[in-house]
């Protein structure tokens, strides 16, 4: 019974691959665009190169983003795009986070006097 309750709780639906705020931000920015380059993403999320690289590797291993390396002249450029699985995972994560917030807000609302009581 306790186990069943734990499984149905929204926190159990949070994805460990993206629940980290920086990875959530990366996936969110990538989902809003067709693709975004490494430098823009780094500046947008205020991350260091190394930190961003590590998070990108985690998301790529999870199959949530695609990384493409191109060259503009001699200058290398790294483009990041969200995969379909990544977009879906982000949607589920947002839904689970909303549920957590709503679940905490619901008992507080219930204690407020209703229109009849007023």
């Amino acid at each position, binding site marked *: 019974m306790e186990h069943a309750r*734990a499984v149905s*709780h929204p*926190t*159990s639906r*949070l994805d*460990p691959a993206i*629940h980290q*705020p920086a990875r*959530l*931000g990366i996936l*969110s*920015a990538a989902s*809003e*665009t*067709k*693709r*975004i*380059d*490494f*430098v*823009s*993403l780094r500046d*947008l*999320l205020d991350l260091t190169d190394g930190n961003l690289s590590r998070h990108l590797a985690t998301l790529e291993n999870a199959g949530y983003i695609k990384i493409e390396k191109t060259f503009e002249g001699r200058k290398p450029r790294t*483009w990041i795009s969200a995969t379909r699985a990544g977009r879906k995972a982000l949607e589920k994560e*947002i839904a689970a*986070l*909303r549920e*957590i*917030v709503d*679940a*905490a*807000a619901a*008992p*507080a609302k219930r204690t407020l006097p209703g229109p009849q009581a007023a």
Partner: protein
Amino acid sequence: MQARLHRTDVSPTQAAARLHYLNDVQRRTRRAAYSPAYGLLVVGAIALAHGAVITLWPQAGLEWLVWIGALLAVRPLIRWLRRRLEQQGLEVQKRVAFASAAAAVGFTVLAVATGANPLVSALAAASALMAFLASMPVVSLATVGVGVAGDLAIRQGLAAGTSQILVGVALIALGLWSMRAP
């Protein structure tokens, strides 16, 4: 209430903070990627040019010159904007352009059916939707206001050309303002 924490250990406060962070990232990405300011400048220029032509040469029926000019200018403008965004490290999804174009067509039909000014309605609807999708609700509302005011002015007897000039100037002003908006 003590929140039940599981393997990811996210409390309601943390969840709210993450949603807030997500909204902020989405808002900044959309603003950078969709560039509604450029859309407003282009749409304002079309309204202004159209209004000026029908005011200066009311009998000549030269509006088609504006539309040919707009058609010729739109492709290189879009290419320039796309290249500029690519240089900034962003490649945009086409859904905003398609949605705005659909809004323009829809509102043109609606304007013809209700007796409103089709050009003002179409341009205002397209740019308002573009600004809304770019997470700029204030600019979007202001654009709707400009469209409604422009149409009401025509119904009150103001010449269509003059109204279009005023709408064009207002949209250009909104575009310039939204470039600097926080």
